[in-house]
């Protein structure tokens, strides 16, 4: 088996170089049949991708340039939906709310994940239990029932309100306050720091012990060691987490929908982007506008991702030695 692989690896580029034109007509029935089998085995996935993902995406790209209410034939309107967006105060509000959520929630969540991962990376008794316990919210956090629990935790006269009042500052329930309700959603996402934490833990395990020993010999304190060894060494993992969590945050929907009792309020306080998209498409029958919004979100996320990838040259440290 090992030999076969090496063989293919070595001979393929050579063959390509030698007879590029002949490749298309290269008659190797066995290979072709093998490919066919591969595609057949993949066919359920391919069918699903074409029917449930690619198809609707192409359709929504078309709808984005039309006036479409789901019932009548879409009417081509060019870029109207996109220009309308920028004049729409609720769209602006939804961008503002989502940006706030991403900018506040993601760093907080990652900081907490990294902090707890650092604590749990040391060998202690009952460590497995703690890891599981901190990870648990990530498993259940996206569920509707937790949204309901959150709603009641942050209402007037509920635990959070009473604790705050006891501590001497009175805001009332967050759920009913247009200014505070977003932080309720931020708290919910930060609470689910378990998933990035597990990835950080895996990253921390990879850092060679010798580096710390050497640094300690040289008299480096814990802070120095973290800053000069840990952080650079886990920077690829950090980059991965930042990327994943940022993209994920942009797509927040469920918690906003449940915590606000489906209205994305009060006073549009939880009107995150996808929530507004949903309202326009499925409540107000403005499917053209909703499709345009979806593509706008895709563009925004792509842009943010591109910036992150560009920035990694400055701060992400990959081990260069090619093993």
């Amino acid at each position: 088996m090992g030999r076969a692989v090496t063989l293919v690896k070595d001979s393929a580029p050579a063959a390509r170089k030698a007879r590029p034109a002949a490749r298309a007509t290269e008659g190797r029935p066995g290979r072709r049949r093998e490919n066919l089998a591969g595609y057949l085995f993949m066919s359920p996935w391919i069918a699903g991708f074409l029917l449930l993902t690619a198809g609707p995406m192409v359709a929504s790209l078309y709808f984005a340039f039309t006036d479409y209410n789901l019932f009548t034939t879409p009417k081509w309107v060019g870029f109207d939906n996109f220009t309308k967006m920028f004049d729409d105060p609720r769209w602006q509000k939804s961008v503002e709310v989502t940006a706030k959520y991403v900018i506040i929630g993601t760093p907080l969540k990652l900081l907490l994940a990294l902090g707890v991962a650092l604590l749990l990376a040391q060998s202690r008794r009952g460590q497995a239990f703690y890891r599981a316990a901190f990870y648990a919210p990530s498993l259940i956090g996206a569920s509707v029932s937790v949204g309901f629990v959150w709603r009641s935790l942050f209402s007037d006269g509920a635990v959070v309100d009473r604790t705050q009042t006891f501590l001497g500052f009175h805001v009332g329930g967050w759920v009913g306050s247009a200014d505070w309700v977003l932080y309720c959603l931020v708290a919910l996402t930060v609470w689910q720091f378990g998933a990035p934490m597990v990835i950080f833990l895996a990253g921390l395990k990879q850092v060679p012990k010798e580096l710390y020993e050497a640094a300690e010999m040289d008299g480096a304190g814990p802070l120095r060691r973290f800053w000069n060894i840990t952080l650079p060494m886990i920077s690829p993992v950090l980059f991965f987490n930042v990327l994943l969590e940022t993209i994920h945050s942009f797509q927040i929907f469920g918690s906003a929908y449940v915590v606000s009792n489906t209205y994305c309020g009060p006073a549009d306080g939880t009107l995150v982007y996808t929530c507004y998209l949903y309202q326009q498409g499925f409540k107000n029958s403005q499917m053209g506008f909703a499709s345009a919004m979806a593509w706008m979100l895709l563009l925004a996320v792509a842009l943010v991702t591109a910036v992150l990838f560009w920035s990694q040259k400055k701060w992400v440290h990959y081990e260069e030695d090619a093993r």
Partner: protein
Amino acid sequence: MGTSRNPERRTILKAAGASAAALGLAATTGCGGESGSGNGAVTIRYSWWGAEERAKKINRTIALFEKKYPKIKVKTDFQTYQSFWEKFQTQAAGGNPPDVFQNAVAFLRKYDKRRILLDLKSQVQAGNLSLDHFRADVTKVGEVDGKQLGIPVGSNTMALVVDKKVFQKAGVEPHAGWTWDDYFKALKTVHDRTKVPGDTGYFTIMYLYDLYLRQNGKAFFAKDGLGFDQADLTEWWTDGYNRVKAGIVTDPKVVQQDMPKSSLSAGHGASEFTWDNFTVRYSAEGDSTYGLAPIPTTDGKHTGQYLASLMLSASARTSHPKEVTQFIDFMVHDPEVGKIMGYDRGILATTEQYAAYQPADAVSKEIAQYEEDTAKSGVLGTITPHPSGADTVEAAFLRLGGDLGQGKTKVTDAVKQFFTEAEAAFQA
């Protein structure tokens, strides 16, 4: 490796091909309709919105129907109000709406414009459905441009529900023909003497504003747009906002947190405008006693009230129009059905059912009395048409009213935004 031709691989290949084909087949058959099996039995789909309690009652009435029409099977589905209409819109857009479904006046024109609703006139002429024995001409609610698009199952009218204990404690007594000035003075007295805000947010309720406008010779909806101008709404909302500030109307923030409970039943307000048949809810949710009071007037006489109604409508796409109509006929006329449903969907619409059901509980009795009194006092007018998009407009009215009540928007901005959104909704 690549050239080996062992039989095993061929078998696998065949199996893969076969299963792919089977999947494809399954996909096509899965989409096929299922009504109309060999023995002539027909299956119709029926959906509605409402709570668990309503579903239990409806299921009992369906059992009666299936006993009388053994060849018709009814498949059911129900959601909450919002989810119902979201799902319905998607189903209808996909050409697959339920055969028969619960409907309300705000949706008639919207789905008539989209050709989803069956005009039941021809079925009435064919003798499958009777429009006789409906109380107070309530079938008019289901009429649009000469078409009969919905058949009422019950009637309701806007009412004022008061927390009797709080009103008594404050020494305030609502009375027929009282004016808005009387009403707001009463709210202030309630708040001064009991510290409870007098009302839970009248200015965000579209159907109440409709009554106010009707008292003044206008209406919320004209045939294809709004029946009032920005100045009207600015005044209505400015007053509302000032009353929130003054504490006589519940802070919308509190209302938001009380949901899905009403702030009236939560004890955060002493009165609330709503449909009379919803009163049942307050006694179930809250600890106080609740009663119905007359709608305040502008001239000491006209309340602007009318009978609205929940209806049953049929899909224009149904392949069993006859069976569906027989189902509707049974559900609105059969006395046993009336006995089971009670006033769950409003005061029973036909005289057969109205006579068959004798409410045992005090609340239901009071609702029936309220509608009887309202009808007798001669204040009932006819319902104004709801243009397509009325549902979206109602949601925007509620939302923007809440926003400005919380002080998050200026009244002038909210009014402007409301007119913009209403315009878009009518055009969609």
